[in-house]
């Protein structure tokens, strides 16, 4: 099973940084570059058709703020209304997309957050391939535990767009627990406090001889280190304006520079008691200021208090007392902030545990889960939970809960529906996620239309709808009409997400739009595709070549020769064009074969009938 080519890459797709790791007999290992750095900044620069990712993109952000995209994770599975808070801080343009999603407008293109995340995933994958010297096609990707269904699906779709078979979506705090190897403990109750760049999670787990059972999870997908940076940005901009005039507005480059200053200051203040900021505003205007740790902490405190509130709720939901929690694990770069450590220690009455680098622990845990899925790590098992309740809209805009939050996944529930009009053949179901009683207070997950219900008098059909949440925390809906035993077809209109067809189309277009062309992959993939096409054409020619007109045959021969030549070359774009041309030239052949098949089926049926 643990074939050499079967390596599953563990990926921490973070708001600010992304990392990759893989599982070995000696435990999980981080993918590092020549300088020993494992972190790829989750930053993408797109300009004039050129894509750069990571440190390179981050370096030129101040010069090209409008074509540099960061914090994409905050947009995953979100609609324009959800990201209003973010909009005023993100220098790039965000517009509305289909089904309450957003698109990023950059370099004359409209890109989905999924496509942008795919670029980052592809970069992490490329680095891993280089480090390991082999092709990687499978991955485990981590998400904040508090991500809802739409955000999880968006992450999985991003993986697909990057050409990865996503074997599992794992929650970040749980991954961290796996990385800590706490399985050596006989039995213990632990808490994981995870403050990342843009999200906060806390999970309470029970560990029992290698089985990690999540008891509860709580969090906030709008709270992270970015918010602390913004506190500093607000402080600096307010002071600059009061010093040099309130009319002073900041261009995108200045805003980007301020962001960098703020991030650096935040990091410095974890080690030092004060940090000095100097901003040259031109024309001899220089803003200079020393910010003390105490000042920063005063501004950060309300955010940290919110995380402690979430901890309190998670502990209650787990049905344990704070005293029973034997260990508190810290995850995410922000847990280096002394205020965060003090607050966590005070709440849990225990010194937090930080043996593993908080930036790397999630990726390492993803690699452990990859090891479990590959069958090389059979001593451990993760039993995770769904973070938010699932329900359906009932009469009067109320929500009927089907699956309660903190239920262990996979889990399922079923409900029987019927029709209200004679002969009705379809039923609509609106699925929601959240804890509140009313539809307007919950998050719409999508509308499911069940079709193919046999026409019957109103109220007679018994349509049993099964809501299955898989181990990724993603919902699947299926339906059967019990009187006829017929399965109903389920059509999904996602809220805040892409339809299956949209993802399929993007996978195809990703070749054209060069989403996956940062590495040699594109050429390899195109060559493989070429081999498939050539084989298919050859087979068709042997079977139905006689239907082609001489001119058609000539055109096809020429296109095939051109495709062979292009496949031998190094130009991916030329190969793509040659492939499309060969496909077009083979059209009459494909058509003729299709007709033949149809005719045969028609004949077959007639024989049956008589």
């Amino acid at each position, binding site marked *: *099973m643990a074939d050499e080519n079967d390596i599953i890459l563990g990926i921490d797709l973070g708001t600010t940084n992304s990392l990759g790791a893989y599982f070995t007999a000696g435990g999980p290992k981080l993918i590092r570059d020549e300088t020993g750095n494992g972190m790829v900044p989750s930053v993408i620069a797109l300009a004039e058709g050129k894509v750069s990712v990571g440190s390179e993109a981050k370096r030129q952000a101040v010069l090209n703020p409008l074509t540099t995209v960061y914090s994409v994770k905050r947009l995953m599975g979100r609609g324009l209304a959800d990201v209003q808070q973010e909009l005023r801080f993100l220098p790039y343009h965000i517009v509305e997309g289909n089904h309450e999603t957003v698109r990023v407008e950059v370099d004359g293109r409209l890109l989905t957050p999924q496509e942008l995340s795919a670029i980052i995933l592809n970069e992490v994958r490329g680095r891993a391939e280089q480090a390991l010297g082999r092709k990687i096609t499978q991955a485990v990707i981590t998400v904040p535990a508090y991500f809802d269904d739409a955000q999880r699906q968006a992450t999985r779709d991003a993986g697909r767009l990057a050409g990865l078979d996503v074997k599992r979506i794992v929650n970040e705090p749980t991954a961290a627990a796996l990385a800590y190897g706490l399985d050596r403990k006989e039995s213990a109750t632990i808490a994981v406090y995870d403050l990342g760049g843009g999200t906060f999670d806390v999970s309470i787990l029970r560990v029992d*001889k290698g089985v990690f059972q999540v008891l509860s999870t709580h969090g906030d997908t709008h709270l992270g280190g970015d918010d602390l940076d913004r506190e500093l940005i607000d402080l600096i901009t307010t002071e600059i304006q009061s010093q040099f005039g309130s009319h002073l507005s900041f261009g995108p480059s200045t805003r980007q520079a301020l962001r960098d200053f703020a991030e650096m200051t935040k990091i410095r203040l974890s080690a030092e008691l004060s940090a000095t900021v100097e901003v040259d505003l031109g024309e001899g205007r220089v803003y200079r200021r020393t910010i003390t740790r105490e000042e920063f902490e005063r501004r950060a405190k309300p955010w940290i208090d919110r995380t402690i509130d979430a901890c309190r709720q998670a502990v209650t939901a787990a049905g344990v007392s704070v005293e029973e929690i034997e260990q508190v694990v810290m995850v995410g770069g922000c847990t280096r902030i002394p205020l965060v450590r003090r607050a966590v220690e005070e709440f849990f009455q225990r010194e937090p545990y930080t043996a593993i680098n908080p930036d790397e622990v999630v990726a390492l845990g993803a690699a452990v889960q990859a090891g479990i*899925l590959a069958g090389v790590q059979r001593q451990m098992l993760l039993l995770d939970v769904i973070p938010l309740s699932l329900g359906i809209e009932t009469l009067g805009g109320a929500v009927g809960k089907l699956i309660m939050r903190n*239920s262990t996944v996979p889990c*399922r529930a079923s*409900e029987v529906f019927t029709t209200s009009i004679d002969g009705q053949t379809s039923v609509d179901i609106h699925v929601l996620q959240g804890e509140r009683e009313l539809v307007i207070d919950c998050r719409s997950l999508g509308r499911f239309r069940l079709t193919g219900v046999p026409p019957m008098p109103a109220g007679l059909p018994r349509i049993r709808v099964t809501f299955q949440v898989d181990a990724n925390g993603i919902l699947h809906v299926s339906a059967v009409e019990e009187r006829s035993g017929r399965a109903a077809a389920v059509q999904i209109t996602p809220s805040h997400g892409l339809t299956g067809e949209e993802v399929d189309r993007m996978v195809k277009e990703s070749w054209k739009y060069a989403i996956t062309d940062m590495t040699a992959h594109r050429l390899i993939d195109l060559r493989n595709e070429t081999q498939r096409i050539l084989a298919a054409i050859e087979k068709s020619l042997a079977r139905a070549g006689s239907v082609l007109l001489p001119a058609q045959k000539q055109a096809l021969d020429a296109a095939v020769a051109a495709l062979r030549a292009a496949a031998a070359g190094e130009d991916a774009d030329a190969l793509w064009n040659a492939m499309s041309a060969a496909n077009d030239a083979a059209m009459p052949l494909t058509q003729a074969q299709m007709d033949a098949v149809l005719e045969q089926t028609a004949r077959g049926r007639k024989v049956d009938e008589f």
Partner: protein
Amino acid sequence: MSNEHSHAGNPASPPEDSAAGVMTKCVACSRELRSAVVCDYCHTLNPIGAPTDYFALLGVPRLFNLDADELRRRYLELSRHAHPDFFTGGSEESQVLAMTISSSLNDAYRTLSDPFERAEYLEELLGGPSSAVDKTTPQGFLDEMMVLQEELTEARLAGDHLALERHGETLRARLAQMMARVAELFADFESQLGCEGIRLECLGRIRRQLNAVSYIRRLVSMTAGT
């Protein structure tokens, strides 16, 4: 659109005849199955034969008085063989089976590991009246609660957290006491082997006690604020 109720996790109509302890055989090794879905010997997953109750799924005796540690040990052991994580390389069919079985085990454990949920489930499984049918409580209970509920509402309106906390503590102690009584009533039921009339009377008493417990649980959540 309209929909009938069928509670997630509760079988629509508990089977009368599926006695405790399934005596079916493993599809792979033909040895007797303790859990209806995971073979203890060869760990093969067995398809869920309908109808299978939660006790049979986990392979524990159909009793109210279950040892919490033993139940958990059993659940984790079965999950170690049934979780979808261990079938990612297998056939589509085996993956679906693992997901179905894992989902059922998770449902079963969630219900049976909570004494109140376990009591409710067992009461219906044994053919007792559901809370929708019989809403009565033990004599004198409601009168007593009326006074308490008034005090609670007042404390909530006044934002008197201390009073709420005090009430919460008293109520939780009361809850524990009442659940101990539930255990006694189930033991009573189990000792009445022969007479159907007496058994039904026992189930009626359990129903009334559980209705009272459910009431107290709501009050406890009132003291927790929100």
